[in-house]
């Protein structure tokens, strides 16, 4: 079992690299072990490919510890910017097939065999409310981690789209794809696309970048992030909101979907809002930690704490996020009361409520 020729070239380049992305390899910031540097991960893969070594659980752990944020891609020495995620995901899929998985990932896999990696929380889905050719779609992550944002997005969406549908599904397949559970990812994605097609839905709106990413990957249905949808609506006036805000670019939204200006636009227009920028923003924004299923949830809190410190430094008292994982990662840093974390959808609901 070999990785693709494309990945093989990337692995060769990364394994003979001067590690200039080391400072931007998020997991190294709290794991402090050379094995997590991109060049070493690539070398490990290269050695397995050349049959110098075999995969074992410790090797699999390094591959699953990789926090696929795309930040190292933007700080790569090679002109094209190599994203380690491109080959890491392929190797994860191989490890799943071989059954060589860290215990925590193995447990998730077993949970997935019983229905969903999100467990009981998403049983009974899909849920469908309303009809129309445009739908607001949530997956398990939004339901689990950002219920307030889900509710806010729903309210705003239905106020702006009288003929819109609201759909909750267990999964869009992103997390499964990221973890190498390819078969299951494909199944969730196909089920979602079938559901949308059967109901004649032409456009999907989501507050979760993962849903947008997966639908764009599929290509059969138009997918918009909630911030793009709001900008298209050209809402003329907003309620006053006296607050110092800073916007956090999520990895998927900024670095992969390249949606950076739409979420900022409303923040800069609302009267009373003083808009700040993080020191590290847009494609260089620092991540807040891992996604669901990530091995080092506790350790990666350090990244969220650093992001909170950065928000304080630039003078903000509210951080606006636009991804369920950014939100929950920041929120989970217990012990702070000086900063409020708010999803973009919650912010929008607050400033448009009186206008409807």
């Amino acid at each position, binding site marked *: 079992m070999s990785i693709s020729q494309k990945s093989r070239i990337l692995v060769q380049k990364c394994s003979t690299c*001067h*590690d200039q992305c080391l400072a931007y390899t998020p997991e190294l910031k709290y794991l402090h*072990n*050379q094995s997590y540097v991109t060049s070493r991960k690539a070398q*490990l893969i290269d050695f397995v490919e050349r049959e*110098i070594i075999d995969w074992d659980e410790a090797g699999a752990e390094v591959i699953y510890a990789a926090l696929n944020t795309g930040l190292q891609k933007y700080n790569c020495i090679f002109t094209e910017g190599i994203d380690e995620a491109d080959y890491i995901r392929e190797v994860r899929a191989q490890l799943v097939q071989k059954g060589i998985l860290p215990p925590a990932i193995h447990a998730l896999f077993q949970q997935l065999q019983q229905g969903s990696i999100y467990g009981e929380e998403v049983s009974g889905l899909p849920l469908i409310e309303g009809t129309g050719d445009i739908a607001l779609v949530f997956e398990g992550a939004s339901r689990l981690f950002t219920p307030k944002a889900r509710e806010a997005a729903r309210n705003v969406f239905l106020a702006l789209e009288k003929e819109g549908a609201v759909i909750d599904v267990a999964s869009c397949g992103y997390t499964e794809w990221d973890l190498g559970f390819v078969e299951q990812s494909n199944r969730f994605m196909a089920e979602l696309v079938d559901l949308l097609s059967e109901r004649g839905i032409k456009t999907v709106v989501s507050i979760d970048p993962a849903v947008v990413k997966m639908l764009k990957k599929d290509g059969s249905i138009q997918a918009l992030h909630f911030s793009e949808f709001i900008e298209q609506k050209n809402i003329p006036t907003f309620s006053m909101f006296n607050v110092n805000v800073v916007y956090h670019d999520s990895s998927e939204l900024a670095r992969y979907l390249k949606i950076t200006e739409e979420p900022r636009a409303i923040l800069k227009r609302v009267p009373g809002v003083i808009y700040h920028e993080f*020191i590290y923003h847009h494609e260089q924004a620092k991540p807040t930690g891992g996604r669901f299923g990530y091995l080092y949830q506790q350790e990666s809190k350090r990244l969220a704490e650093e992001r909170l410190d950065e928000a304080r430094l630039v003078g903000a008292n509210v951080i606006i996020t636009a991804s369920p994982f950014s939100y929950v990662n920041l929120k989970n840093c217990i012990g702070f009361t000086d900063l409020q974390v708010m999803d973009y959808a919650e912010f929008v609901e607050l400033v448009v409520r009186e206008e409807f």
Partner: protein
Amino acid sequence: MIGTSQVEQDLIEILDINRVSTKKVDKIAYSHDTFPLAYKWAQEKGAVYQPDYIVYPETTEEVSQVLCYCHERKIPVTPYGGGSGIVGGGVPTSGGVIVDLKRMNRILTINEHSLYVTTQSGIIGMHYEEQLNAKGLTGGHYPQSIRSSTIGGWIANRGVGTYSTKYGKIDDLVQALTVVLSTGEIIQTRNVPKSATGPNLNELFIGAEGTLGIVTEATLKIFPQPESTEFISYSFSSFAEGMECIRRVMRNEVNPAVVRLYDAVEAESHFSDLGIHKGECVLLFGFAGNSKLVAAQKEITTGICEADGKSLGSIIGEKWLERRFSTAGLCNTLRTIGGVADALEVAAPWEKLPFIYETMKTSMEKVISRGEVFGHVSHVYHTGGNLYMIFHAFTETNAQTDELYYEILAAAFDACLSHGGTLSHHHGVGIGKAKWMPEELGEGGFSLLEKIKTAVDPNRILNKGTLGL
């Protein structure tokens, strides 16, 4: 030596189970640094020099306990930071214990009044600089490896940053050190700007490449972030003319942050998209700091450069800033079968530098049948400067690259040393240049270094082979 499982248990006793590794994946990761030949070994044979254990201390005291243990049992120890060293100083050629210092990554104090910082040595350079920048300060030390190297590595290898002509080299920036000797004894030098109390003990460990002790904490000078930064650049018809221009600037009390003179080959490769023509050498000056001083220095430098050079404006500087961390050229050659590349950074006084450049280039080209040699000057002083001689060379197989590499180095260093230059300005010696150390230091000098090594590290456990020790 005692049984390996016992060593592992003892190290776990000193640290804890999560901070001692004997995993295969970790042994592979620590089997090399950025030494060019290490990549070739990996391509040819896999992980050639593997450590037996990797430990992750978090305090000076823990480093001390680990070293004390290894000293008593004569277990080789290799300190490890970001693994960015290009001379093989981080390669565990004798196995033993790798002491990874990256968990020692905390800045302990920042004194904004007196402008110094005390930090643990395992902090990554970019993270260090970011924390200073957040307070409107800078460390003033921005090596090409800043994103992958640690402060401990800068000190161990006597590194320089790209703005070194203004802010100084790491040896100029170190004010005090905490060092653990091989026996576990902890030495702390005094945090004062200068002291006339015998030889400066900091200097014993700066550039010692971990052979005399492990630096665990450092107090470094820092600076307010510059108010203004400006670049100017000029083209010259010859490399020697460019060098002469720098020499004249440096004796006019100008203190530029960046000085870089590219020979025609390197200038074309970096700046052909900016209209640099074949045969032109490019000289870049960068000024940083108080805006009035920047303006004054720029004016003086412009006056000197315009005598023989043609102005290229500020675009060269802007592009250099954008691309300054890229080492893709070297990496692309290294991953080619039979390809080997390196940047040899020598130094000499002004009167010797042009001749050393010509002689090294000619000597290296004689042994490189396929490939190229080019160079640039950077990091300068009023008495002389640093010369980078960069080569890309190709042979048929990876197995032949060791031989080719050392033939090139022999040609280069024979030319440099015999004409009064030094082996290394700031990359250090490691294992790659170790065999030239007796010639570099002279018989008496090298013998003295050997005696110091024996006195400080009697069981000779620290970084075996590095510096030729």
